């Protein structure tokens, strides 16, 4: 009896999530029709794609920068907490890193805009001076630091504690048995980590990174505050580029009710949905490829 009720509740919760998502999807699709269909001209998918693709690329660039910067640091910090720090300190250190997660995105936005951006301006100047033959550092360097790179750095700081937290919990769970097996073979600490810890934590690391990526893809306010959005450009050090959530946040308040602009903004929300989907499916696929070697029970 109790079992039926409980499993029923569990199922219900899952179904509730599905229902919500279907609701969200319907809501988005319904409201974004106006972006791809005009009464006079019929389907205008091409125009919409022209509008959407720079935003898609901008979103991916910012998230990619964030991931590239945050993942190694986050994994490093998680390792530090689980395997390097003095055991007595590691709990408190974990707490300190959690502090990063406690900071609201508005504050990150304000920090990125008023402190980080200006701090990076000389770096952008330097990069431009010495490395402008690389397309990433071409273009006139920003005088304000409000670039997609700065936004990426802020996003990296924001997702760092997410990835750290998940990785840390998993690293700590690594069976002592396997760690000792590696050490007894004469492995150094680092070799032990690559032999026992990483393989065990692989799925968890990817899960944490995906969670961080989701945050980076969907982060609105911090990016909107830090970035000077503009045309798509390969340059990381000049103003330009924008991300989907920022575009929505910046455009939606003034979009007239029922207008094509409003539909467009909701439609790119739908596009972000699809991006998230593809990214996560890829991650799941990577995890599942090695399932029988995962060591999970």
């Amino acid at each position: 009896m109790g079992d039926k009720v409980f499993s029923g509740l569990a199922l219900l919760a899952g179904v509730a999530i599905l229902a919500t998502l279907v609701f969200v999807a319907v809501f988005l699709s319904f409201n974004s029709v106006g972006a791809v269909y005009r009464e006079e001209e019929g389907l205008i998918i091409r125009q919409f794609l022209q509008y959407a693709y720079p935003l898609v690329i901008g979103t991916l660039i910012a998230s990619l920068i964030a991931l590239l910067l945050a993942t190694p640091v986050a994994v490093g910090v998680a390792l530090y907490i689980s395997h390097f720090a003095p055991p007595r300190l590691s709990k408190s250190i974990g707490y300190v890193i959690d502090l990063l997660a406690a900071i609201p995105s508005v504050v990150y936005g304000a920090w990125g805009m008023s402190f980080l951006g200006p701090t990076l301006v000389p770096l952008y100047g330097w990069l431009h001076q010495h490395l402008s033959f690389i397309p990433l550092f071409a273009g006139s360097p920003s005088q304000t630091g409000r670039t997609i790179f700065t936004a990426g750095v802020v996003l990296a700081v924001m997702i760092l504690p997410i990835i750290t937290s998940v990785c840390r919990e998993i690293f700590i769970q690594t069976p002592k048995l396997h760690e000792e097996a590696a050490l007894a073979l004469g492995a150094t600490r680092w070799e032990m980590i690559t032999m026992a810890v990483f393989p065990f934590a692989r799925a968890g690391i990817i899960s944490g990174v995906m969670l961080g990526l989701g945050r980076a893809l969907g982060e609105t306010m911090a990016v909107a505050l830090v970035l000077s959005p503009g045309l798509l450009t390969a340059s990381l050090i000049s103003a330009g580029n924008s991300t989907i959530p920022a575009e929505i946040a910046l455009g939606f308040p003034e979009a007239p009710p029922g207008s094509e602009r409003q539909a467009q903004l909701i439609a790119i929300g739908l596009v972000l949905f699809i991006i998230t989907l593809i990214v996560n499916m890829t991650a799941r696929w990577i995890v599942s490829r090695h399932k029988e070697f995962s060591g999970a029970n």
Partner: protein
Amino acid sequence: GEANNPVAENGDENGNGENGGGETSEVQGTLVGGGASSQEAAMTAWTNGFTSVAPEAQVNYASVGSGAGRDGFLGGEYDWAGSDSAMEDEEWEQSKEICGPDGAFHIPAYISPIAVAFNVEGIDETLNLDADTIASIFSGEVTSWDDDAIAEHNEDVDLPDTPITVVHRADDSGTTDNFTEYLEAAASTWEWEASDAWPSEISAESAQQNSGVVDLTSQTDGAITYADASQIGGLNSVAVLVGEDYVEHNAEAASQAVASSTPVEGQAPNNMAVELDRDTEEAGAYPIVLAAYNIFCNEYPDQQTADLAVAFAEYLVSEEGQQTAEAAAGNAPMSEDLRSTAMDAISQISAQ
């Protein structure tokens, strides 16, 4: 005087002191509205001030943006909306569903000039420019402060060769709409259509909201931007060539520009939406003006809301209301004529 110590008087329903001895109204209930953020500071002052006029009433305003405000208004979420631009005809048609056969109407209660403001080390005074030059600067054609195009208008000023950094609004905004409308109408070198969004082909540095562009400009040597004149703080601004004279932004000129503009036809009989005359040659007029409308229903579903709406709208356009806003937000008070037209329009509000 204002015995305003909200800290001490917290928890008390009508904690504000009496206001200048004006008579108080009996209306009660809560009136909710939302929309343009341009009038947020003024609205804060208004909602506060209104409590002293109508101690039983409460007014809430959410600065969600003009579009979202109109959306909420038409969707029945708000009793009135604040908006930097007037409703489209379609929207007005839609407003009949909730506002009765005459639909909704606009009152330009918040008027403020838009300043072209800059921060250049070495220039501590107002610069003179004409519309074409302003357009060339903002479109990125003129890239240095000592460009001839600028020097031509400012023979007495020693211009540095600082590069120009254009700062525009990152968010879609009524300020941008009004500014680009001016450029479109008055400058021959401006090729873009007026819009809430800054033309994406010429995007440069940008920030959110008036405070954002002003801060960014203040931090950046050589920066120029456009912003609500009440919010530019210590930045210097441009005197714009109108006819034969260079005109600095000022309150009177701004409200004059609204008063003398063309009314929008085809909506409610008491509608006060206007088409501003951007390329005016009239002496002393300052053509870059923003008028934020407050959009009310002609008919409200119940008497209480109608009374509240009337009381609040009347307070907005009252002399006292306009002064309160000016003191708090620094905008331009409505002219006498405009106020009395508005009072007439408001008196049309009724309950269904």
